[in-house]
């Protein structure tokens, strides 16, 4: 965190000043480790084993916050008798379909819900990264459940959890992660001792945690711990994601993703959502408890914001104009489609895939095979010059004179040169003013898209083609100002907030959304950011002039609520768990919920309320159902739906690993997304042969001194000089083994690429003893590319393309490689070296490794496809 988020880390240092103990788990000793109280080196890619060990420590010693767990989680809920755990399936849960490499979730459901909950077969959900839409609400599940309040029923979630993690002992943690058991226990004790009635603990991760083939399950394991310890919905608790850039939270709320619409409404699928009603019902799940029941109003208001007067109840608010998904349109599928000539044009904004994305060579080859490419950036980045200066020019794979892509580079305004908002990890929306005018032709994104839309509409004016209606019907009337006709960002924020279409009155909350076309809302969860006609995001009242929750600094979605599910900060009867952790509570005299924050509960619903039988929507939420956006009102220790690779996290090895999975016959996540494409390959892992050709584990991350792909730091002198060259960090032991010298050169080889780097031999890295073997790990920064003041080979070139099945995030934090002293070959000889390694490792480009590495997955009668290997 000190490396990648030094500004946020000031609060860790502040806590440390006040006596907090800081634990740091990382494959290498970083600037965070330097100031931590305990540092635990870990084998990259084994976090579920470590955190599963903590879960086991909690359950084995009954250290869970029992009253919280009973009332607010689904620990007591009874699961279908058809469910088979991964412990009994050698890594497979029941319902695996080897044909598609995905699960049918029926058997995961709560008892009695097998046929009316969940999504059934999940292959299509994987292609549309459907897990993302659960950022604002739980997955589909029926509200009425069977429970055993004693937690003794063998099929209640608590017992299933206990059995699932029983083998994740301190000894197993040591065997899998390479963390000595005493150190592990030090961590487990500190975490559990600092949670409960009087104390809470917060789990903070950075986005590197998501970049694994089991990334979502990493976070799920953290969530299970936080729920068991009563750390959710309470002050000082929670799970926070430190984002890699400003407003990454904002760019999922109002998404730059192929599969979502604003406010986590799903992008319609052509087959599943033919009509507006079908689309709405797939969101609100009739009969389900909770607040998602108003989906129709949110959907209608969004379409009304898009198409204004043209959107009417009679034409389903122009639902027909919305684009439809037909499958996987994620960024990696797009790149492969580019190589295959299926994509004609590409807009790149604030992104530098030639350096920042996994498998850089595939990225560059894809972009070299377009009709046109528009790059908007602050600097001339690698993704704009790959056709001229990229490594493929040296190897002869791209010939500049023949490269067919026409590249348009448009200078962009930086964040200080335009107004708008940032939304950070707490969902806090903060308005920022423009400090200076952008130089020259640099313009804001808002300017670019507004005027692009305006010109397209002008060109299409008068067209009677039905396909042009979606553009021509748009409400595209933002006020502009200044010499360049800059659109008003505040006008856009007002539209995001939403308004009454007849009076123009700005809405004060999404509760005012209507499904009859009388309201237009750009993003329903942001409704209230412009309440009372005031830009609430621009509020800057000092923390010294308000209480510690500081509700008048900026504005948080939803409804300016700073902690979600804060009903859980009070006990089931509505009283604070403790005076020290008082936050939101029931005031019996006033008959309402009150506290420091906006209660995340219906204000006047008493703790004693029990829903009538068959109640749905908000009415179905009981007075002690704290997790109001979940279908059953409970925090999910066990996820009967929504997570595609299993209801419980299970340790799998990374897609590329030198180790056999010590826990299960199944080596890696069987549902991971793979692409069988000639440009792509995966280095062999056990039980495949030849994994020793790539004997070392490499991991990449950030340096404090640089920002992501380096476009904003390698181009700036005072930053470039601080880390001026690409380097690789190795332990003294690996240096001895591989013959590397400090400040000498080394080159690293994977099945995709060869890169070179200067060597730093440092005591900060250590080999690990894992399952009786010594494993060496190397570390690389991923900031370098071939443009800018300081340049170097790109670490991300080493990676292949393997994705998490839930959200289609690439596994780009871990891979295997070989390392040799000296510089890499140049020209065509470079590809020869890769080909030689591929040959030795038995890699056939375009063929995926066997996904199933056990003889027979649970619940399967036959052998499935013929690529099984022996365990």
């Amino acid at each position: 965190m000190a490396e990648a988020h030094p500004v946020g880390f000031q609060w860790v240092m502040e806590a440390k000043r006040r006596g907090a103990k800081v634990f740091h788990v990382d494959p290498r000793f970083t600037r965070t480790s330097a100031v931590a109280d305990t540092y635990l080196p870990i084998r990259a890619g084994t976090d579920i084993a470590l955190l599963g060990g903590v879960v086991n420590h909690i359950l084995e010693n009954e250290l869970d916050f029992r009253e919280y767990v009973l009332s607010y989680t689904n620990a007591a809920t009874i699961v279908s008798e058809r469910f088979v755990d991964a412990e009994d399936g050698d890594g497979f849960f029941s319902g695996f379909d080897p044909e598609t490499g995905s699960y049918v979730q029926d058997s995961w459901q709560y008892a009695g819900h097998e046929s009316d909950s969940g999504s059934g077969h999940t292959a299509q959900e994987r292609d549309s990264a459907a897990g993302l839409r659960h950022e604002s609400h739980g997955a589909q599940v029926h509200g009425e459940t069977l429970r055993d309040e004693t937690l003794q029923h063998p099929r209640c979630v608590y017992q299933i959890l206990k059995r699932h993690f029983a083998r994740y002992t301190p000894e197993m943690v040591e065997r899998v992660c390479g963390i000595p058991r005493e150190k592990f226990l030090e961590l487990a004790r500190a975490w559990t001792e600092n949670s409960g009635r009087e104390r809470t603990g917060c789990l903070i991760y950075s986005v590197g945690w998501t970049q694994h083939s089991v990334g979502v399950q990493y976070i799920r394991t953290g969530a299970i711990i936080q729920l068991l310890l009563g750390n959710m919905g309470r002050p000082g608790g929670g799970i926070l994601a430190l984002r890699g850039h400003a407003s990454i939270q904002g760019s999922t709320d109002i998404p730059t993703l192929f599969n979502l619409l604003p406010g986590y409404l799903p992008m319609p699928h052509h087959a599943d959502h033919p009509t507006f009603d079908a689309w709405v019902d797939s969101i609100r799940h009739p009969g389900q408890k909770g607040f998602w029941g108003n989906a129709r109003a949110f959907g209608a208001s969004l379409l009304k914001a898009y198409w204004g007067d043209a959107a009417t109840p009679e034409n389903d608010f122009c639902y027909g104009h919305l684009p439809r998904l037909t499958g996987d349109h994620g960024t990696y599928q797009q790149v492969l489609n580019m190589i295959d000539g299926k994509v004609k044009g590409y807009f790149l904004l604030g992104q530098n895939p030639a350096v920042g994305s996994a498998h850089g060579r595939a990225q560059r080859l894809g972009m070299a095979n377009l009709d046109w490419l528009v790059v908007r950036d602050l600097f001339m980045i690698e993704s704009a010059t790959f056709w001229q200066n990229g490594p493929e020019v040296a190897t002869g794979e791209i010939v500049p004179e023949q490269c067919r892509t026409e590249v348009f580079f448009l200078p962009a305004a930086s964040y200080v040169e335009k107004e708008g908002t940032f939304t950070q990890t707490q969902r806090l929306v903060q308005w920022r003013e423009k400090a200076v005018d952008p130089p020259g032709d640099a313009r804001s994104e808002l300017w670019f898209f507004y005027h692009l839309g305006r010109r397209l509409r002008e060109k299409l004016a008068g067209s009677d083609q039905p396909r042009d209606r979606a553009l021509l019907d748009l409400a595209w009337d933002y006020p502009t100002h200044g010499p360049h006709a800059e659109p008003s960002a505040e006008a856009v924020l007002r539209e995001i907030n939403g308004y009454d279409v007849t009076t123009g009155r700005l809405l004060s909350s999404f509760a005012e959304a209507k499904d009859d076309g009388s309201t237009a809302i750009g993003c329903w969860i942001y409704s209230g950011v412009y309440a009372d006609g005031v830009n609430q995001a621009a509020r800057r009242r000092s923390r010294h002039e308000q209480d510690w929750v500081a509700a008048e600094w900026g504005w948080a979605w939803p409804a300016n609520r700073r902690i979600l599910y804060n009903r859980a900060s009070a006990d089931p009867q509505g009283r604070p768990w403790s005076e020290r952790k008082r936050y939101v509570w029931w005031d019996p005299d006033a008959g309402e919920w009150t506290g420091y924050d906006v209660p995340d509960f219906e204000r006047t619903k008493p703790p004693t309320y029990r829903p009538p039988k068959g109640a749905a929507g908000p009415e179905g939420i009981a007075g002690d159902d704290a997790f109001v956006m979940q279908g059953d009102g409970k925090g999910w220790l066990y996820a009967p739906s929504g997570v595609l690779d299993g209801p419980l996290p299970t340790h799998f090895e990374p897609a590329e690993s030198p180790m056999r999975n010590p826990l299960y016959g199944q080596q890696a996540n069987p549902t991971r997304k793979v692409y069988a494409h000639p440009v792509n390959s995966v280095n062999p892992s056990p039980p495949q042969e030849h994994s020793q050709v790539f004997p070392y584990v490499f991991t990449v991350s950030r340096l404090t001194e640089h920002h992501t792909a380096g476009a904003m730091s390698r181009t700036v002198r005072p930053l470039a000089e601080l880390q001026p060259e690409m380097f690789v960090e190795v332990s003294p032991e690996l240096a001895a083994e591989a013959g590397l010298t400090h400040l000498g050169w080394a080159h690293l080889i994977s099945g995709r690429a060869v890169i070179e780097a200067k060597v730093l031999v440092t005591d900060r890295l250590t080999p690990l003893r894992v399952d009786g073997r010594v494993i060496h790990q190397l570390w690389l920064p991923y900031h370098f590319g071939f443009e800018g003041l300081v340049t170097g080979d790109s670490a991300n070139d080493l990676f292949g393309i393997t994705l998490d099945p839930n959200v289609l995030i690439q596994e780009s934090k871990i891979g295997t490689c070989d390392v040799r002293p000296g510089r890499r070959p140049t020209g065509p000889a470079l590809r020869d070296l890769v080909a030689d390694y591929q040959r030795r490792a038995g890699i056939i480009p375009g063929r995926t490794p066997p996904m199933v590495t056990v003889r027979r997955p649970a619940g399967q009668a036959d052998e499935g496809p013929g690529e099984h290997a022996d365990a």
Partner: protein
Amino acid sequence: MPDANSLYGPLDPAPDAGWVQAGPRMGFFTDTSVCIGCKACEVACKEWNGVPDSGFDLLGMSYDNTGALTANSWRHVAFIEQPRPAGHRTPPFAGTPTGGPVSATSAAVAAGSADPSGTDPGVPPDAADAAARMAAGGTPAEGTAATGANGAATGTRFLGMPGAQPPGRGTGAKERTDFRWLMMSDVCKHCTHAACLDVCPTGALFRTEFGTVVVQEDICNGCGYCISACPYGVIDQRRGDGRAWKCTLCYDRLGAGMTPACAQACPTESIQYGPLDELRERAARRVAQLHGRGVPEARLYGHDPTDGVGGDGAFFLLLDEPEVYGLPPDPVVTTRDLPKMWKRAGWAAVAMAAAAVAAFVGGQS
């Protein structure tokens, strides 16, 4: 007590320099125990003061790639890797299959590769032994722990084969378990008795109303006297420019009531700016707190008004001996002995003259 011309001893420098309505003396307290090595101070300093880059060279001295305080580096963050305990509750690499430590040898290689920084003292280029000692934390035995192929100690020279034994098979004695990574943001000390200022023949260097020492770039003629005068090796001549440059403690910002850029940018309040008296009290409390928490090695550096420079306007909390950070252990203002020297020179001149007169007088007889 200072003598009449105030070349050493405690005093308040601004009134001493003739400021009649000077406010309290302002300065820096840099608490290295909370430094996270982010280098925001270096960047903020360069951005605000328009300082050029120091060259794009990977120095290999841990994460330090600007090398030293120079004309082009007015804040400099030192990184020292040492195989020594650092208050981690369990040694960081306990239980992992390590061989011997390499910190000292890597530092020695890095020292040998650096370009001359133009700064002296400090760690001069090619001072491999000094660098190794820094990394070893003053215990030469650990610093020379590089082992050859036969496992025998072979001295500080880095042979590229620091734990040639197969990992995990060491005897235990040579395995590294402890490790610490010290980080420290260094800066001009703004001495009470600033030798640079004393020797400046043009008046380019002057004492401000805040008690700080500033070079006026439009007056400096590049004579370079100040450079050899500085006991810390801070002030430096810029190549291709010829003039002397160093930290101004953001004199322009101070005048506008602002905090210096480095302190403003520091995320962890490792760099604190304020009235020096207040900072010294705060620092003393912090040292006591750290001692109470089991960090006995915490100590202040440059806070004492009775030291060889009359105390620094920028002082530090360190976690090891000053030499480990490249700081002189007992700096003395180089002009302290000037009066005595001039007196001696005077007596010598008188004696010479007397001898000459005597010779002539004697010759006549």
